[in-house]
């Protein structure tokens, strides 16, 4: 595996050749940069993957049942398992989605579940991403290119091929398709994940669509072809967020939405992947309740653990948080992408006091977690291998059945002292190998 290091330069050249980039906005200007790639993969054994597969599928199944419940009967609320507050005052709950039954009854078709492995070898769930988790394209193309640059490594080691992601994605879209073509809806060229949108469309055989390419007519969704003949769309893998999706339903000022698409969806004439309104289930506050959901809906114990979490909303937890603020990590439930994450140990006494006041004033807004001492992975820096914090985003696809992609996006922090691995904050990525038996 270490011979991969010798091929680093070749692999990076290939990544540049294929434009493997992500965009960021700096001073309101759009820049594209290469996503720093580290050649040393994260390796997961077949047994370990089996375990993860069971745990992640279980989790996503429960989350899908929860979403269906929250937008219809609300049994879990009535039975007092989750306080109504955490659902119906959440920004992610969209009353516009109430009583919609999505095709195939699936809400979260593509879930990105972030995990870390602790030094105790246990895996912990950090976060569920049920809206538009991105990142699958990077390990997919990195694998393709690494195989080209270092074929010998791959013929010696039996590694599950991860390039089947496109097939899995296509099967998921086909399963919920209501009749018509599959499209990947991108907000446009200047979106941070544009590379991924266009790459996944190409690989899955879906048509890449800009918002202006789609049109609602007579309660059906169409793709406008040049020359005048419109084609019906049966499934939209949309990569723009709920609030911009339909100016007739959400933000009226959205210029990148498709007017009327929500009504088409409500009428069952198109599938939207992932379903609008999923934000209610991947809220950092709801995270706390996922093990309860698993028990409630599936009658099972959660296979994968949450990081120990305290809800400021509960008085007992709040007291605990305020007492141990300096050792906890505090997260603002309304923020995403590594923003709104505060490590108590990094704060001065005064800042800690300020934080305590904010938590007391708005308890519903915060959760606090024990800092998990997660294992380091080696990355190549110059001629050395150095340890860095890394997490794993596993992709779980729900269609006819629920399956975990035998790979994932391993993101690492390039800063030795940082636990924050997000690409928007300068992190890099590795391929994730799942060994075959």
């Amino acid at each position, binding site marked *: 595996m270490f011979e991969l290091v010798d091929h680093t330069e070749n692999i990076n050249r290939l990544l*540049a050749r294929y434009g493997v980039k992500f965009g960021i906005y700096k001073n309101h200007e759009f820049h594209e940069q290469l996503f720093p790639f580290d050649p040393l993969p994260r390796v997961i054994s077949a047994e370990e993957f089996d375990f993860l597969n069971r745990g992640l599928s279980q989790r996503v199944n429960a989350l899908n049942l929860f979403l269906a419940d929250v937008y219809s009967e609300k049994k879990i609320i009535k039975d007092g398992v989750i306080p109504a507050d955490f659902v119906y005052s959440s920004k992610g709950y969209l009353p516009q989605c109430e009583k919609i039954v999505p095709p195939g009854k699936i809400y979260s078709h593509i879930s990105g579940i972030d995990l870390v492995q602790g030094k105790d070898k246990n895996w912990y769930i950090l976060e569920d991403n049920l809206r538009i988790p991105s990142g699958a394209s990077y390990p997919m193309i990195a694998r393709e290119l690494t195989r080209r640059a270092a074929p010998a490594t791959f013929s010696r080691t039996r590694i599950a091929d991860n390039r089947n992601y496109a097939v899995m994605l296509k099967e998921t879209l086909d399963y919920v398709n209501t009749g018509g073509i599959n499209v990947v809806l991108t907000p446009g060229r200047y979106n941070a994940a544009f590379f991924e949108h266009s790459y996944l*469309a190409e690989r899955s055989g879906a048509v890449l669509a800009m918002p202006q390419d789609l049109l609602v007519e007579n309660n059906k969704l169409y793709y406008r*072809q*040049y020359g005048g003949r419109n084609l019906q769309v049966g499934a939209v893998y949309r990569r723009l967020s709920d609030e911009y999706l339909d100016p007739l339903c959400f933000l009226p000022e959205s210029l990148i939405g498709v007017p009327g698409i929500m009504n088409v969806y409500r009428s069952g004439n198109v599938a939207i992947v992932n379903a609008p309104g999923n934000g209610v289930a991947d809220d950092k506050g709801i995270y706390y309740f996922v093990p309860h959901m698993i028990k409630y809906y599936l009658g099972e114990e959660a296979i994968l653990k949450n990081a120990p979490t305290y809800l400021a909303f509960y008085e007992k937890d709040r007291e605990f948080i305020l007492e141990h603020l300096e050792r906890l990590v505090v997260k603002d439930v309304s923020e995403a992408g590594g923003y709104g994450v505060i490590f108590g140990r990094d704060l001065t006494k005064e800042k800690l006091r300020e934080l305590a006041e904010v938590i007391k004033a708005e308890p519903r807004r915060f959760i606090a977690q024990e800092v998990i001492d997660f294992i380091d992975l080696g990355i190549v820096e110059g001629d050395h291998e150095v340890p860095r914090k890394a997490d794993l985003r596993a992709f779980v696809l729900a269609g006819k059945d629920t399956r975990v992609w035998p790979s994932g996006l391993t993101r690492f922090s390039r800063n030795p002292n940082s636990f924050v691995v997000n690409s928007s904050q300068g992190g890099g990525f590795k391929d994730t190998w799942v060994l075959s038996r």
Partner: protein
Amino acid sequence: MGIISIEKADRLFWLGRYAERVLTTLVAFFDFYDEMIDGDEKAYRTYCKKIAIPDVYKSKEDFQQKYLFDGQNPDSVISNMERAFDNAVVIRGELGTYTLSYIQMALDVLKGEGGKADAPAYDLQQVIDYLNAFWGCMDDQTEDEECRNIIKCGKYLERLDLYMRLGYSAKAIDKEFSKFENRLHRVRLPYRRENEDRLREIISLGDGWREYEKEALEALWNLFEVI
């Protein structure tokens, strides 16, 4: 038949135009550059005039630098290459990642060479190589015929425009025109038949076409109704 939106048809067409503009102007640039090596220091002025770009350059060196590599200069080769890339990147699905990579690499060479090329005709040979590879690959790998035809409509329209301006032989122009018509008749882009007829008439005059140069160019520019 593939699925092409209005937006994508537009992107395909303009990709064809810009990729061709970079290729043909680079080749033409090398010819003028060759003249400037030991002779006419101001040959670039004629060049600017011919392809109708403003002559904003102070000297031969200034021209060489700014015409090739200055991203702020809207008429520079690199600006045209950027535009080719901007169009190409949104039609990855139609072109394929494999084909698209040649556009990416051509752009990367121009970006990388900026400011240090003292032998541009040598250093930029790679841009020409990648663009030729792009055209070959596009022909070979782009499954959808309609896509290929739209790109080529853009390509040959641009080529005709530049060949006419640069004073290529009537024979060369006639050859490109028939390639252009061949594609034009196979796409669903709306165009003005009367312009096509007039162009054919003028080009069939052989070397005599030059008398009607302005009219020919105008007929060409206004050939398409929307794009």
